[in-house]
């Protein structure tokens, strides 16, 4: 089955000063969403990317030039990503469409090119 990458971008933006109860409620929404996807028979894995770190390499004449922070100019950062099985873009989009992340940022969906 094809695999899709869901890139979760946000502006670093959960509301400030959340209470412990509210923080738990948000986490529970993500967990509930993942479990729903898994319960539908679709494999899903998640990866958190480290905040405020990264390197951007540019090739060219001589040795590559590295700059800090992959998103120095970007308004939104990629907080993490999910890899999920889906039949096609339509299904991948359906699965992502009730991800709670849409309340806090955007989701970019890309199909992973299978070998061959």
């Amino acid at each position, binding site marked *: 089955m094809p695999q899709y990458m869901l890139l979760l971008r946000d502006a670093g933006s959960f509301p400030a000063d959340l209470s412990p109860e509210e923080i738990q409620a948000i*986490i529970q929404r993500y967990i509930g969403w993942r479990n729903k996807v898994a319960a539908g028979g679709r494999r899903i894995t998640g990866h958190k990317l480290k905040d405020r770190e990264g390197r951007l390499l540019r090739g060219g004449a001589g040795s590559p030039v590295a700059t800090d922070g992959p998103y120095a100019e970007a308004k939104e950062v990629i907080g993490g990503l999910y890899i999920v099985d889906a039949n096609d873009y339509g299904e991948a989009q359906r699965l992502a469409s009730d991800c709670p992340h849409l309340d806090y940022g955007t989701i970019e969906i890309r199909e992973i090119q299978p070998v061959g």
Partner: protein
Amino acid sequence: MKSNPSASDLVEHLFRQHAGRMLATLTRLLGSRHLALAEEVVQEALATALQQWPFQGVPENPSAWLIQVAKNRALDRLRRDRAFAERERDVAATFEARASTAIGGGPGVSRPFADDELCMMFMACHPDIPRESRIALTLKTVGGFSVPEIARAFLAQEATIAQRLVRVKKLVRERDIPLDLPDRREMPERLDSVLEVLYLMFNEGYAAHAGESLVRHDLVDEAIRLTRMLARHPDTETPKTHALLALMLLQAARIPARQGAAGELFVLEDQDRRLWDRALIADGLRHLDASARGEVVSAYHLQAGIAAAHAVAPAYEATDWTEIVSLYDALLDVEPTPIVALNRAIAVAKARGAEAGLHALAGLRDDPTLSRYYLFHATLGELSREAGDLAAAARHYEAALTLPCSEPARRFLRNKLAILGA
């Protein structure tokens, strides 16, 4: 990393309760003077979970994970903030030494956590702290409530609660109020102060009006959770503690029957007793038994006794009002307040008839608190009607209607008046 696709759900109120435990443990390690720093690192740990758990899933031992992150954040702060570390050399050194040993993972952790939480309760309810700030500080520190949540629970302004907390934390720092259990000599008085705060917390949540927010139920739950903690610990498990817990459980058992589908409130007489929580009643009666050892009969004992008399009556008509009157008599001795006297008079009317109830109320007519309380006049009206004096009944209902009361109560009174006129 967790590749298992089905992540485990979080236990209800886990973060709120862990926030309290973590804060207690961190404050123990840093000293109560650094309560504010402890609060910051706890909040950071919870925020870190928010960043990571959606992707990585819930760790196998969420409590150990959270406390470890909070400890690491505190260590980072101590190492980075040179000025702090030099000024507070002892704190930094002891924290480093103790942080690695004080909290491990595994099953042994719950005991020290619980002790730290108890100490935190005694700190928040310390006699040096102004009475009106004790509940807010207890909810904030032990309960893991945020300022907006506390404000909502007390129908107060956020700014008011925030200022109150800032002042009181300054007081903790200045007076160096320790994070310890009081010694044997001080314990009775200090425990009284804690029990009083929990009693007020419970009442604040229990005295809910129709259609109010759930946060107020959370106050009830939290008061019960904390009182249970006291009832389990050998140093704080006294007859009085059991009596207060019994009172809370027996009252809370009736909550499911208090509100109808449309949010309307049902008084005791109109409640569907099948909706009462039998498990809570059984638990309440067990603690009432446990409260009976020893010589002390506190106001909590008597109120719990009254709640128990209602809880065991199979129907309103089967209530043992004679027993309830004698409990109110005793309560009036310990707590001679007008409200207790009013409730006693109502019980007297149930036990011995409307005339006897009116007689008991006669002495209270000049009380300034009661004369402004609609329920006092409504009770006079009700008893006058039962005694056959319809003109007096109408007068009292009309007096009640001139005083502030909720809309459903107002409808109830107008209805009574209309029936009298017919």
